[in-house]
């Protein structure tokens, strides 16, 4: 095996130092009766054969489609520098910075990431990352319960229905009262999403006010790229802001790894889950960074910890930071503006033959009701080279004809026109 360097003669020498005759002797503690008897595993492959096998598997995925699929995960442009820099093994082969003196690269980058999240979302503190958007929303809900000593979690209809299901799964045995709506009375928190799962943009500042008056925390789920343009969770009065960070320089990757973003008001920092990096000085007075407020965490508090999280998504957070630095204020604004403008262009073309379901302005995604089942329409458009969108019935968020259509800055006007033409033809017949 090429990844195991010890040679046969070294093995003999090592066994001599240990004082046993064979490697098997080292397993004496494993009862004979419980040893492995054989298994159904494929034989090993050389690197050459492995790569051919992986190429063949990858080839059975179709990736040359023009993508109008979103639903919380988007096909954005990723500058080459993000891959080049996050691919440095000094980053990706390190682990959690338990020894800060030899992990300043990790620690400073996390501090800069926390800062970028705060600047983007108009919040005061952020943690080093959680697993993904759905688990970040769950953590925000339990954090609000801890902070308020209340047990009711109110989930607005704007929230991603899959994340809502994840929330119910994670809370299945907690004695929480998870209800739909937006009534802050007696609640630990009210959770809203902006833009909504269907893409609608709102100003939730009034609800933020009402939450404050009722002593409930206001949790806002945001789309990071939309904040190149949209009002921030902080400006709407959010106490906790969470997001799926995939759109910030992470590949779609069939579901992950992604990035759970969680930010809050500073007075809530001790209720936050996960790692937090803080600035400090070394013995010579030089600036340095360390993990801080660790008394919230599982390795110290065990069953009393704020969360069980240990490994997080630090490398994804690093990519998000690199993406935001490369985009800068103007690049992110332009990206958001391009997403919005292109989506508006397509929406107006589709609205000519299918009703748009959103009850207000939209950012870069909108829902339409087609005259035929959305899955059938998507199947026909696949044949024409389009990923036409998300059939909403498939995620329990609409009727058979409802389709969620997303547009990013990567789609050209020619693609938008071709898509609108094809959709019209498939929905209304060929007399264009």
């Amino acid at each position: 095996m090429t990844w195991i360097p010890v040679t046969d003669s070294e093995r003999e020498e090592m066994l001599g130092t240990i004082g046993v005759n064979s490697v098997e002797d080292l397993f004496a503690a494993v009862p004979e009766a419980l040893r492995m008897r054989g298994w159904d595993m494929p034989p090993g492959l050389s690197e050459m054969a492995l790569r051919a096998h992986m190429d063949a598997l990858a080839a059975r995925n179709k990736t040359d489609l023009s993508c109008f699929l979103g639903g919380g995960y988007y096909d954005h442009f990723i500058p080459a520098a993000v891959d080049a820099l996050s691919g440095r093994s000094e980053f990706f082969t390190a682990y959690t910075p338990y020894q800060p003196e030899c992990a300043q690269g990790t620690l400073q980058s996390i501090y800069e990431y926390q800062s970028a999240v705060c600047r983007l979302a108009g919040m005061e503190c952020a943690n080093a990352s959680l697993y993904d958007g759905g688990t970040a929303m769950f953590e925000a809900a339990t954090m609000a319960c801890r902070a308020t000593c209340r047990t009711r979690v109110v989930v607005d209809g704007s929230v991603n229905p899959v994340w809502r299901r994840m929330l119910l799964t994670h809370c299945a045995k907690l004695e929480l009262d998870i209800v739909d709506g937006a009534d802050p009375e007696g609640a630990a928190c009210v959770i809203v999403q902006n833009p909504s799962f269907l893409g609608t943009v709102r100003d939730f500042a009034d609800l933020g006010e009402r939450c404050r008056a009722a002593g409930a925390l206001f949790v806002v789920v945001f789309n990071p790229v939309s904040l190149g343009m949209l009002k921030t969770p902080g400006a709407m009065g959010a106490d906790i802001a969470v997001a799926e960070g995939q759109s910030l320089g992470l590949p779609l990757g069939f579901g992950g790894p992604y990035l759970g973003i969680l930010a809050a008001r500073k007075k809530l920092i001790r209720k936050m889950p996960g790692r937090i990096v803080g600035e400090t000085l070394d013995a010579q007075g030089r600036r340095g960074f360390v993990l801080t407020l660790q008394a919230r965490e599982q390795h110290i508090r065990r069953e009393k910890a704020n969360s069980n999280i240990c490994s997080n998504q630090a490398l994804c957070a690093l990519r998000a930071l690199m993406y935001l630095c490369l985009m800068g204020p103007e690049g992110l604004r332009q990206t958001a503006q391009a997403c919005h403008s292109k989506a508006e262009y397509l929406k107006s073309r589709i609205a000519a033959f299918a009703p748009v379901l959103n009850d207000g302005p939209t950012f870069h995604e909108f829902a339409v009701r087609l005259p035929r089942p959305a899955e059938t329409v998507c199947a026909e458009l696949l044949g024409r080279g389009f990923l036409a969108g998300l059939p909403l019935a498939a995620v329990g968020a609409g009727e058979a004809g409802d389709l969620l259509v997303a547009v990013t800055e990567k789609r050209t006007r020619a693609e938008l026109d071709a898509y609108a033409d094809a959709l019209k033809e498939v929905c209304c017949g060929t007399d264009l």
Partner: protein
Amino acid sequence: MELIYEKSRSGRRAVALEPLDVPEAELNSELCRPAAAPLPEVSELDVVRHFTLLSQRNYGVDSQFYPLGSCTMKYNPKVSELVAAHPGFATLHPHLSSAKVYEPVCQGALELVFETERMLAEIGGMQAGCLQPMAGAHGELAGVLLIAAYHRDKGNTHKRTILIPDSAHGTNPASAAMAGFEVREIPSTPAGVMDFDKLVEALDDTVAGVMMTCPNTHGLFEPQVHEVAERAHAVDALLYYDGANLNAIVGKCRPGDLGFDVMHFNLHKTFATPHGMGGPGSGAIAVGERLLPYLPGPRVVKSADGYTLETIPKSMGRMAAFFGNFLIAVRAYAFLRYYGGDGLPSVADNAVLNANYMFARLRGAYQAAFEGTCMHECLLSAVRQADKGIHALDIAKALLDRGFHAPTIYFPLTVKECLMIEPTETESKETMDLFCDAMLEIAQLVDVDPDSLHAAPVTLPVSRLDEVRAAKDLNCACLA
């Protein structure tokens, strides 16, 4: 080093975007932020230099021996990175698995999910695997929630406690509590294994499950693990296997055969996916017969016309929106196919050999935490050195100066002045010898020049950092 925010110059740009090819649309200004986000304004070279310099302030497996106990910091094969970056996997939209219509365009990915879950179940001696959990702790949470779903379905309303040995990783009690269970701790014997009599005593009718790590965090195989399973099952309590230490036994014995009902794998440990400065990893789980009906869904199944998704009627629900950290699973799949069933046992063989070799070389100068052979990691206690004023922390810092990452220190909490050393199977004898030589040299310095150890590290960009100050004058973000 300057922060990227301190390098910002008004008007500087790194990325030029396409000019807009449709009319610019406007949103009501009340819905918009009044000014652009205060992100750094830097050039591409500014960014490249900043992060290249930052990377050089890190130790990683590619540049340093990283014997961080319990973390299995083995070499991360380059071929795994290559295949995970394949556009055929990396650019796939996750919602392709949400609607039937898209199944035909992601057959390769669905096959990879199916085969990885199948191989994990086989390695675990279990019935089925599930890739959804996104790290070990998330797998633990999934596992205890599965146990909760089982008891709910059986009407076992009195089951509210999870038993956990005192040597367990902090995530075990944290996961049980986070799911809504009460936690009761079982002590270890002086020999470092779970006190079986105390466990039997605690196994009353309220016990929903027992979480164990085997080998445990003392590096010892739990000798009575099979009896624990029998006793637990006798009161309808289920047994959870924390797979963080699977590298010790992969291909040698299987948690399912030992009597466990559910387990997690740390793909970032046993199957060599990179640790990414703290993550992403993957905490895929596998379950035996008792928990099969409750697995998170939907599941990939193989049918006559290919791979398809199936809902599970009694499923506990969803731990992830899709298949967890899929691109991590791609790397683990590549690792598993590379070794294959014939090669995997040599992973455990060499991991255990290496740990025992280091143990043999170091147990004279440092006190062994427990006697006998160890499994894939060895635990030393710096109590003799501490008597002379040099603590595990000082030894760790001295190792950093000598070009090594430190072992895990002060974990598990059951061992005083603990140094937990896990070399993994990918380290050579020379590297281990150099590390042992450094440890022996440090042990000598404790007697002749302890002050030099208090000052360590002196070779790194910063010396010891003031953690008290960090918590007191809290500064966790550079705000605009």
